[in-house]
């Protein structure tokens, strides 16, 4: 042949008539498929009527509440997706059983006296009337109390208010003035932040205790202690010979000097135990609070901030069920971020993206809420097998310190992607939408990622989420985990390009199938009747398809690529190979103005 010709890579054993499209990033082409379905994976609660591991289309919140239970992860994820896109996408859910041998996360909120200048209060009653608000993932209650009310009564009132709602995100327990909030499901998953606020901002003499840090022993060497509070940290120096009371005093004084996500106090006569308090109006993940000593010997520091969730979902049956169907879901929302489970999911999606599987064209979304340092250390795009940075199908959101659970944001993103009519939409700036029943909580101003951190995240192939200029949570850069090989495939780092390629696959498949299904192929003379076609008509059809997409701003430069479209019979008499150019539009991300001063 005169021109270079690419042979599509179809696995052996494919005999079924149809259109098979292969996307190549090493020279020209690629593959995909669009629809308006999103798929939300999550835990269902005991008593839900849904069959575990089987995808189910959910049409209403009422249905979700019955199928999964109103307080379940899936019911809340569905609510989030529907708030984002009330109409326009099909929402499918895959209910998973929580790990039976796992542990449910427990966080503490104890009603105590408001500390003064770093010293704990011994009070047991409120000094003045006030209103306390407890929010868990933005959902919560408010209870008012009057002067003289015992802390145990305030806790009781809070539990009573909490228990009035069936769909609260955690189970509230009480012992005296201490409240516990147990996650609705066992397992190690992000369950959002807790915020405890008092309208008087402490003037009522009432505060909420989060946990403690206990120093023990005398430091044998000089070093430091670092208190991690999700994305923030506070570090103190511990000098050799420092007793535990010196270290605890140092930590309390350190936290008094700045605005941190937690506050601290200790007894007037220090004991080495530091009490941590919720900071007014500042959501925090209690289990994201930890302490680490560096180079310090003998002395120890221990955080007591609740019980971490443990356990991961078993995906085998669910993935098998999804794989056994021809149905494709444009965007998946995942709640797990563990390497092995992400690897299993990626393996499944990559397999389903193969030519023989009809190239389902699916993207899996998950959202991290950890610190910039933790995100960089985990570097998930390189940690899985297969590596996520080898594929364009994994938009990874990074919403540092978001009060919402990561899976709530992922569900919203998946719904938005599935519902979008303009398949090449640049999702930069996409806002997350919520309401009172499925709130979206803006990240606290002091906890938002800096510009540098956002840039670092993009460099690590994460899509940062923060608060935009209008005060709404938004996707700052809508990318994928893909690491390009060069300039040619650099567009694939953007979600829009990946979605566009999927649409190409879907649309070209339909276009050619309609025109050529059932035809005979004439190789050596012109077609004389409507019963047969030639390779030339196939080339024309592909070009016409590209022109049509070009007119819809879905293809960049069809006319210039006309002569590159070639069709030939080279592999077998019943197969025509076509080389075509897939040219999605690039996102306009950066406008760089070089201004001349005059």
């Amino acid at each position: 042949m005169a021109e270079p010709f690419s042979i599509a890579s179809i696995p052996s054993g494919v005999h079924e008539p149809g259109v098979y499209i292969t996307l190549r990033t090493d020279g020209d082409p690629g593959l995909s498929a669009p629809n308006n379905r999103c798929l939300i994976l999550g835990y269902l609660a005991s008593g839900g009527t849904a069959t575990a591991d089987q995808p189910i289309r959910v049409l209403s919140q009422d249905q979700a509440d019955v199928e999964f239970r109103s307080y379940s992860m899936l019911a809340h994820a569905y609510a989030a997706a529907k708030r984002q896109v009330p109409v326009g996408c099909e929402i499918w859910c895959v209910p998973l059983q929580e790990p039976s041998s796992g542990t449910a996360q427990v966080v503490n909120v104890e009603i105590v006296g408001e500390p003064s200048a770093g010293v704990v209060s011994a009070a047991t009653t409120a000094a003045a009337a006030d209103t306390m608000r407890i929010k868990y993932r933005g959902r919560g209650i408010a209870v008012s109390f009057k002067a003289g009310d015992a802390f145990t009564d305030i806790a009781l009132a809070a539990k009573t208010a909490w228990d009035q709602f069936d769909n609260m995100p955690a189970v509230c327990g009480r012992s005296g003035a201490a409240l516990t909030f147990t996650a609705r499901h066992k397992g190690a998953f992000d369950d959002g932040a807790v915020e405890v606020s008092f309208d008087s901002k402490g003037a009522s003499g009432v505060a909420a205790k989060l946990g403690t840090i206990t120093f023990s022993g005398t430091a044998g060497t000089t070093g430091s202690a670092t208190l991690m509070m999700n994305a923030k940290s506070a570090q103190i120096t511990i000098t050799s010979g420092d007793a535990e009371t010196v270290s605890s005093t140092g930590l309390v004084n350190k936290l008094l000097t700045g605005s941190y996500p937690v506050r601290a106090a200790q007894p007037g006569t220090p004991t080495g135990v530091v009490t941590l308090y919720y900071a007014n109006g500042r959501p925090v993940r209690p289990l994201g609070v930890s302490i680490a000593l560096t180079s310090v010997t003998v002395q120890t520091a221990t955080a007591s901030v609740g019980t971490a969730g443990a356990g991961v979902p078993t995906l085998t049956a669910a993935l098998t069920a999804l794989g056994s169907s021809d149905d494709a879901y444009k965007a998946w929302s995942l709640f797990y971020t563990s390497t092995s489970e992400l690897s299993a999911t990626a393996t499944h999606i990559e397999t389903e993206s193969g030519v023989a599987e009809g190239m389902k064209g699916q993207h899996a979304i998950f959202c991290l809420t950890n610190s910039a340092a933790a995100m960089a250390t985990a570097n998930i795009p390189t940690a899985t097998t297969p590596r996520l940075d080898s594929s364009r199908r994994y938009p990874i959101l990074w919403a540092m310190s978001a009060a919402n659970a990561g899976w709530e944001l992922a569900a919203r993103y998946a719904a938005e992607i599935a519902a979008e009519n303009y398949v090449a939409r640049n999702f930069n700036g996409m806002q997350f939408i919520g309401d009172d029943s499925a709130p979206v909580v803006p990240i606290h101003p002091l906890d938002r990622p800096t510009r540098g951190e956002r840039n670092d995240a993009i460099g690590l192939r994460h899509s940062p989420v923060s608060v935009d200029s209008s005060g709404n949570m938004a996707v700052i850069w809508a990318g994928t985990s893909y690491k390009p090989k060069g300039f040619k495939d650099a567009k694939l780092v953007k979600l829009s390009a990946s979605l566009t390629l999927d649409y190409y696959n879907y649309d070209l498949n339909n276009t050619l199938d309609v025109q050529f299904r059932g035809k005979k192929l004439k190789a050596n003379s012109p077609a004389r009747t409507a019963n047969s076609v030639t390779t030339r008509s196939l080339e024309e059809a592909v070009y016409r398809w590209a022109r049509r997409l070009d007119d819809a701003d879905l293809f960049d430069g069809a006319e210039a690529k006309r002569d590159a479209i070639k069709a030939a019979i080279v592999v077998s008499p019943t197969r025509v190979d076509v080389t075509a150019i897939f040219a999605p539009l690039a996102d306009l991300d950066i406008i760089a103005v070089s201004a001349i001063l005059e």
Partner: protein
Amino acid sequence: MNYAGIIPVRIGASTAPSVRQVQYNKKVTTKIHKFSDGTAGGSEGRPEYDWSLTCSCDRDKQAILDLIEDAKATGELTITFDIGSRSHMLVGCLVSGESYSSDNDGTADLTITGVAPDLIRVR
């Protein structure tokens, strides 16, 4: 020098059967602007196209009509003409007329006429 003697026609991807005569016309409205200072200029509008296919009537059925119906049903009626080594495709075609005629002396014709908003070169 060789000259084209026939213009093969396709409806969608399929060869249009029994077509005996093909024609498409490009029409552009042009206007000369004459100015009072003695100068003049010209302008032209967007082109539009009309086409016609004259077919011999088959005894049993008019397959070309089925092709046109199928093309419409599946999205878009395109008509492609091969002129030499180049191919031109009328896209978004609309059928504006359909007529049968016979001279009762051995010839029966089906003439299909229409318009199209655009013509693209596909090869």
